[in-house]
């Protein structure tokens, strides 16, 4: 546990989460199958995965930070840089494209005043292009916090952004 104490930054994982992952890893013949679970847990708590999160994951699983890093950087839903409170994954695949997805993406950018890959100044929203989200029947759509919002129009986008802002204030 010594090394964990040294690499434990605030807000990445709760004490009991660390204990649970260590316990679970000890039970498994191949503990590294937990890499994504741990990275996702860190991201859920912290919003993104900083270097300290890579080191913490490596320490829990007995891996090198590099072994964790090469996994973390492969996946587009693991963030290695800070993002806003609500990363907005905008589908740019074919079904959304046929139903006005490009217009919806442009409207998000216009309303938020940011380009893809950027975060609003208030730290609320990050816009990210995404491949198909499995909402093809309700195109065009976006995913925010594991929720899919489909059949989007400018009106619906306005309401969605207002609702999310209110959710944070509440």
């Amino acid at each position: 546990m010594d090394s964990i104490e040294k690499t434990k930054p605030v807000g990445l994982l709760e004490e009991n989460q660390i204990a649970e992952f260590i316990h679970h890893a000890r039970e498994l013949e191949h503990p590294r199958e937990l890499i994504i679970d741990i990275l996702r847990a860190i991201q859920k708590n912290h919003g993104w995965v900083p270097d300290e999160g890579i080191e913490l994951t490596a320490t829990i699983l007995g891996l090198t930070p590099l072994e964790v890093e090469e996994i973390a950087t492969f996946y587009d839903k693991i963030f290695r840089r800070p993002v806003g409170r609500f990363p907005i994954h905008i589908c740019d695949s074919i079904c959304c494209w046929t139903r006005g997805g490009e217009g919806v993406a442009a409207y998000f950018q216009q309303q938020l005043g940011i380009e893809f890959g950027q975060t609003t100044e208030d730290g609320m929203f990050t816009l990210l292009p995404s491949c198909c989200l499995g909402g093809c029947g309700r195109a065009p759509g976006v995913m925010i916090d594991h929720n899919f919002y489909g059949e989007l129009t400018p009106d619906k986008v306005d309401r969605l952004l207002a609702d999310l802002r209110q959710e944070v204030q509440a």
Partner: protein
Amino acid sequence: MSQTPQLLFKNRRPGETVFMDGYRATGGYQALEKAFRQMTPQELRELVKAAALRGRGGAGFPTGVKWTFFPSDAPGPKYLVCNCDEMEPGTYKDGELLMADPHQLVEGMIVSAFALQTDIGYIFIRYAYEKQAEHLRRAVVEATEAGYIGKNILGSGFDFELHVHGSAGRYILGEETALLNGLEGKRPNPRLKPPFPATRGLFGRPTTVNNVETIANIPHIINGGAEWFLDLALTPDGSGTKLFGLSGHLNCTECFELPVGIPLREVVENYGKGVLHNHTFKACLPGGASTPYLTAEHMDVALDFDSLAAVGSRFGTAGVTVFDDRTCMVAVTLNLIRFFARESCGWCTPCRDGLTMVRWLLEMIDSGKGTPEHLEMLKDQLKNISGKSFCALAEGAMGPVAGLLTHFEQEIVDHIEKGCCPFRK
């Protein structure tokens, strides 16, 4: 209109998810009882082979044949892995199935594991399907409490544990060996085959990987029998029903359970309620983003594996994406290639560099800067990439490019001659 018996969507109600009580109320877990009390693993494998079930994840390989390759009597741990990565654009059927009725997959996993004598199962599920993953985790707990998962299931002496493993994005994880690397917590590049997963798969042990819809069909085959399952299809060689996810320029873009072999026209007109805004049908992807286009001349083609192969396309996942007559097929193909090029894992050169090249060529043509040389280079890339890549990703990516060149080469020529997209106002 809908005469199709509903197997997989039997319990589907808008906005609802059925769990143990509701699933049992319509006959859930009767197949499991029958399998464990009255059948041997060998009989189960023979039954699935006789039912001619073909893989519902895109490749269409006969499931029963795949299962006969599996060394079910090998000592030591063996794995059954369910592929719920479902990230091919236009494909959302597995997500719909799991939103409605997750126990079907759980029951299917248990009886399939018994048939294959695999003691550990994983359901590998994509990041965007976290709600479905939660439903599955609850269903696994319920099935464990009911004694269907765990030690000595129904007194059979067979033990089985089942895990739900969430992913974090990337289409390549749908490739079965990349999925196995991802599940192990390794960088998910595909593996060299052979050895095939049946001999050395997850953690180097014998493994079978099957799609969600494939596995969910197994309990129905046990209940209804092979003959009944074969008779569900409209084509003589086909079997079963299929989940068709409709999308694109249709009035109704929902997911339907329809017989294998249903003609494209019926899907478009009766279920899709015709082309959006009374426009004309121009083309469709019949089974996801990697399947070569069908055109209006294919309206009477039966949607089944062999009949679609005969017209140069594939049944794939039966995600049907329709394009109306105002759609630029160069732009469609460019959108698809952008997806595949971005999702390439970068492991092999034909995929990493080849798809990037194809994307550049289509961008040149789409923007009106294309030349006849670009068209020739595009044709050349078909030969350089198809059949040359390490896994099926680049092969699939070139499906729409092949379709573009076969059916819509004139649109490419028009772009080059006019110096702009003829469809853009």
